[in-house]
C-alpha cells in the first residue's frame, strides 16, 4: 500500500521591533535573564496592553507579501489558559480577525513551482521562557510580550523536502521584507509540524500527529522523515496511529509527549482593553508600496529578463543584500554580463574573505559600476578592472580616485602605441634581429612584455600585439628586399 504524506506547518516568527508588542520594554535578544522586562510583561494587577503599531504594520506587510486578504480593522483576542510562562493567565492573540487569511507562497522545489496555501497569519505575544532544573524551574521574562507572528499553512505539504523548502523560503520572505532576523538559533523562528498519512487515492485525512516547537530546519526534516517511517510501519501492520503530540529528540527520532485531548478550550474572547482600529485603504496601500520584490520573483527575472544561468540567478537572488547590490549596480546602466561577473566573483569572494557583510563593504554599487564601465568601454582590461577593485578595497579609496591618481586609463590610441613600440624596437636591435633573421616568434612576447612594462601596464594588450606583429613583419620584409 502506498501512502500519501500530508503536512501542515504552524510557523512562529518573532518580529524585530524597538519595543515589545504590548509594553514599552525593549525587544531584543539577551542572554541575561529578566533584563528587558516592564510591568506589563509581568502581568501585574492593573496593567493594560498598548499595541505596537510597528508590529502591526510588519504583520500586515507579511500578510500582503504572502498574498493574504487583510481585515477591515485590527482586533485582538484573548486566549485563556494557565501556565507558568504566561504571567497574565491569557495570551493576547488574534482569532476573530487575523492580519491575513487565505494566502499562498510559491516555492521552488527542484525545477517546479509548488504553491503552499496559507490558512492564516496572526499577531500575538510570546510567552516567558522556562528553564527547568531538577527540583524547580526558573522563569525568564525577556521573551514575555515579544511580538510573535504565527503563520498556519493548509495541510498541503507532501514531503520533508517541501516542508524545509517552504520554511527556508518563508524565512527569506521575512528577511527580504526586513520584518525579522528569523534566526532559528535564537528561537526567533520556530515551527510546529502536523503530519498524517493517508492511503493513496483516499479522500479522508489520516490521524494527525503534532510535533511542537522545532527550531532547526534540519530537525524538521529529520522529524518528518522519521514520522513517515514510523506511521507507515504502523499502518502497514494494520494498527492505528494515535493522535498525540510528539517531541523530536537529538537522535532525530520522535517520542510521544502527551495524547491529544481535543478539548483544550482556550475560551477566546475579544480583548476589551484594545479598541478595534480601522484599517484604511490609504494605510494599507502605503504598506503595500514598501513591499520589495521577493526572492522567487527576482530569480525568475534574472533568468527570463537578464538571461542569466540558473546558477548565477541562484547566487544573485540568494539573499536580499546581494540581490539589492546587484540590482543597484545594474541601475547605473552597467553591462549585465560584467555586473554578474564582478558581483559573483570579486565582490562575493571579498566579503567572504574579509568576513564582512555586503553593507559593510567599502565599494558601493556606484563605484563598482564605474569600474565595470571602464572595462566595458575597453578603457581597462577585465583583469585590470578586478585588480583596481581589490586595490580600492584595500586602500578604502574610490577606484576612480586611484585611476586619476595613477593615470591608469588604458592606452588605446594607435599612434601613441606605435610611437612607444617603435622606440622599444629601436632600443632592442638584437631582439629585432633575432626575429628578422632567425624567425624567432618568441620575440613577439618579449615586445608585449616590454610594452606593458613601459606603459605601466596601461597599453591595450590586443592592440599592442597587432602593432608589434605588423612592425616586426615590416622590418623582416625590409631586410629581405635589402
Amino acid at each position, binding site marked *: 500500500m502506498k501512502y500519501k504524506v500530508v503536512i501542515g506547518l504552524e510557523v512562529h516568527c518573532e518580529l524585530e521591533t524597538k519595543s515589545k508588542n504590548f509594553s514599552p520594554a525593549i525587544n531584543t535578544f539577551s542572554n541575561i535573564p529578566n533584563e528587558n522586562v516592564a510591568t506589563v510583561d509581568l502581568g501585574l494587577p492593573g496593567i493594560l496592553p498598548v499595541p505596537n503599531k510597528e508590529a502591526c504594520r510588519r504583520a500586515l506587510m507579511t500578510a500582503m507579501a504572502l498574498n493574504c486578504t487583510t481585515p477591515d480593522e485590527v482586533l485582538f483576542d484573548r486566549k485563556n489558559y*494557565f501556565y507558568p510562562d504566561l504571567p497574565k493567565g491569557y495570551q493576547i492573540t488574534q482569532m476573530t480577525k487575523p492580519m491575513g487569511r487565505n494566502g499562498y507562497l510559491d516555492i521552488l522545489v527542484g525545477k517546479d513551482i509548488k504553491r503552499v496555501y496559507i490558512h492564516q497569519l496572526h499577531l500575538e505575544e510570546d510567552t516567558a521562557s522556562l528553564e527547568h532544573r531538577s527540583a524547580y524551574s526558573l522563569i525568564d521574562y525577556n521573551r514575555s510580550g515579544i511580538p510573535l507572528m504565527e503563520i498556519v499553512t493548509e495541510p498541503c505539504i507532501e514531503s520533508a523536502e517541501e516542508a524545509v523548502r517552504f520554511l527556508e523560503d518563508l524565512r527569506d520572505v521575512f528577511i527580504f521584507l526586513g520584518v525579522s532576523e528569523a534566526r532559528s538559533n535564537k528561537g526567533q523562528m520556530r515551527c510546529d509540524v502536523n503530519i498524517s498519512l493517508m492511503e493513496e487515492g483516499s479522500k479522508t485525512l489520516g490521524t494527525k500527529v503534532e510535533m511542537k516547537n522545532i527550531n532547526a530546519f534540519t530537525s524538521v526534516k529529520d522529524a518528518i522523515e522519521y514520522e513517515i517511517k514510523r506511521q507507515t510501519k504502523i499502518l502497514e501492520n494494520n494498527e492505528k496511529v494515535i493522535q498525540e503530540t510528539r517531541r523530536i529528540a537529538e537522535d532525530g527520532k520522535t517520542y510521544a509527549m502527551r495524547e491529544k485531548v481535543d478539548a483544550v478550550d482556550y475560551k477566546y*474572547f475579544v480583548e476589551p482593553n484594545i479598541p478595534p482600529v480601522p484599517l484604511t485603504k490609504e494605510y494599507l496601500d502605503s504598506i503595500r508600496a514598501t513591499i520589495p520584490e521577493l526572492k522567487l520573483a527576482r530569480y525568475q527575472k534574472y533568468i527570463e529578463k537578464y538571461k542569466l544561468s540558473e546558477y548565477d540567478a541562484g547566487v544573485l537572488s540568494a539573499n536580499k543584500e546581494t540581490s539589492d547590490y546587484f540590482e543597484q549596480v545594474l541601475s547605473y546602466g552597467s553591462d549585465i554580463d560584467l555586473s554578474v561577473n564582478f558581483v559573483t566573483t570579486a565582490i562575493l569572494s571579498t566579503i567572504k574573505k574579509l568576513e564582512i557583510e555586503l553593507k559593510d563593504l567599502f565599494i558601493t554599487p556606484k563605484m563598482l559600476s564605474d569600474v565595470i564601465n571602464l572595462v566595458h568601454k575597453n578603457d581597462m582590461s577585465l583583469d585590470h578592472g578586478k585588480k583596481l577593485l581589490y586595490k580600492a578595497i584595500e586602500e578604502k579609496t574610490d577606484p576612480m580616485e586611484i585611476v586619476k591618481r595613477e593615470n591608469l586609463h588604458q592606452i588605446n590610441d594607435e599612434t601613441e602605441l606605435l610611437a612607444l613600440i617603435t622606440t622599444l624596437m629601436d632600443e632592442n636591435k638584437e631582439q629585432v634581429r633575432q626575429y628578422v633573421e632567425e624567425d624567432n616568434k618568441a620575440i613577439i612576447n618579449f615586445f608585449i612584455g616590454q610594452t606593458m612594462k613601459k606603459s605601466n601596464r596601461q597599453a591595450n594588450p590586443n592592440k599592442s600585439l597587432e602593432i608589434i606583429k605588423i612592425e616586426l613583419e615590416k622590418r623582416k620584409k625590409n631586410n629581405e628586399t635589402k
Partner: protein
Amino acid sequence: MYRGLNITQLRDKIDNEGISPEEIFESTNKLAHQLQDEYNSFVTIIDKFKMKTTNKTLLSGICYGLKDNISTSNILTTSSSNILKDYIPVYDATVYKKLKNAGAVLVGKTVLDELAMGGTGTTAHTGIVRNPWDKNRMIGGSSAGSASAVALGIVPFAIGSDTGDSIRKPASFGGVVGFKPTYGRISRYGLFAFASSLDHIGTLTRNVHDAAAVVDIIKGLDPNDMTTLKDDNKNYVSSLENDIKGKKLFYIKEICDKKLYQDSNDEVMLKILDEFHKMLDKLRNQGFIIEEVSIDKQLLEALYPTYMSISCAEATSNNANLTGIQFGPRNDGSSYQEIMMKDRTLGFSELIKRRFILGSFILQKENQEKLFLNACRIRRLIVDKINELFKDYDGMILPASGSIAPKFDDSSEKLSEKYLILENHLVIGNFGGFPSITLPFTMIENMPVGINLTGRVKEDDLVLNMANYIEKVTGLSDIYSKVGDSNEV
C-alpha cells in the same frame, strides 16, 4: 476639627487661615484611626504626611482615600483579597500619579468587596464595612470604604471604581455623591481589572462641586490606557452654574411607576418612589422638562443577567494572573497545576470562586454563543435604546435604589423578581460608558436615599451641571454622619 469640611472649605483653611496641610493630615489621620475599629473604612491608614508638590491646585494639601484596588507603589494594595494580602505594587496607577502631582494627600487605602466583586461591603479579607448612618446596616459596595470614609466626614473625597454600580450604589446608601464619568475619561491604568469593558474609576464626595473638582484633576488621555478619550479641555467646575432651563430628562416607566408595585407591602420602597416623583416636580419647577418613557420590560429584565454574564466572563480572565506563581501566597504542590489550584482555592472567598466558575462556564466554547455573545448583543440593544432616547433627552433620572441600606442580617445576593430592575438599572451607565452620578435626595427612616442622573457619553460637564442644580433643590449637600464626634449629642 476639620471633619466634614468640603474641598472649598479646606482650601479656605489652607489658603486664607494659614492652616498647614500637615496639620489637617494629622487630624484626619487621628480621626481615621478613631473610627476604624467600628466602621472599617481602611485597609491601610497612612501615618506619615507626604505631599509631593506645593504647586497650587484645587487639591493641593487636601486629604483623600483611595480604593485598595488601585496600584500605589510601595503601599500595600490588597484588593481586599487574601490572595493579595501582602502585595506591594511596584508602579503607580495613573489616577494616583495625577493626584500626587496635584498635591493631594493620601490618607488611606479603602476597603472594598473582594476584588471589587459584590455590592455589600461585607466580603473584604479585613472584615465588613459598616454604614456610618446606622452601623447595623451595610454601606453597599464594592467601593464600601471609600463611601464610608466620605460619609463619616473623614476625607472630603475618595476614589472608587464602578463596574456595575460600585460607586453609585454605596453613594446612595451612604448619603454621598458618587460620580462615574464617561468610560475612558479617567485612565484605568493601575486599576486592578474586574471587567475591563465595564470598569470605571470615579469619585465619592459630599457635594457635586467636589466631584467636578476632583475629576478635573484626574481625567485625561493616558498613553498607557488605549481606551482613554482625547482630552476634552473643559473645566467641569466652571460649567457647574450653567443655566439648565429647558434641559430634558426622562425616567423609565417600567422602573418608577408606582402602579407596578401595587401589591407590594414594602413601605420603604413605596416611600422612595413617592419622594422621587415629588422631587421630579420640584425639578420641573426649577426649569427641567421631565417626561416618562417606556422601554421594553424584557430588555430591562435582561440587565442583571447580562451584567453577570459579561462581568463574570471578563473577571475570570482578568484575574487569571493571581496564581501565586509571580506574586502572592504560594502553596506547596507537586506540579504547577497543583500549586496554582491550591493558591487560588485558598486565596479567594466562595463568592469569588462562584463568579469565576460562572465566568469560565460562560466562556466555554459550547456556551459562549448562547451565554456570552448573546449577552454582548443584549448590551448593545440596551445601549442603542438609551442612545436613541438621548437624541431627545439630555439625561435619564431614576432612583438609585429602591431601598435604604440593608441590615446585615437581611442581606442576600439572591435575585428578587420584585427588585430586579429597580435595584440593577445603574449598570446601564456601565454598559454604555455613560457619565452617571448619584446624589442624596431624601432621608427615609433617618437613612439617606440617592437619586441617579445619567447623561450622554462625553457630556460629563453637562451631567455635573445638571446634578449641581438637583443638589440645590434637594438641599442635601455636605451631609455626613457625625458619629463618634465629641460634640455629638
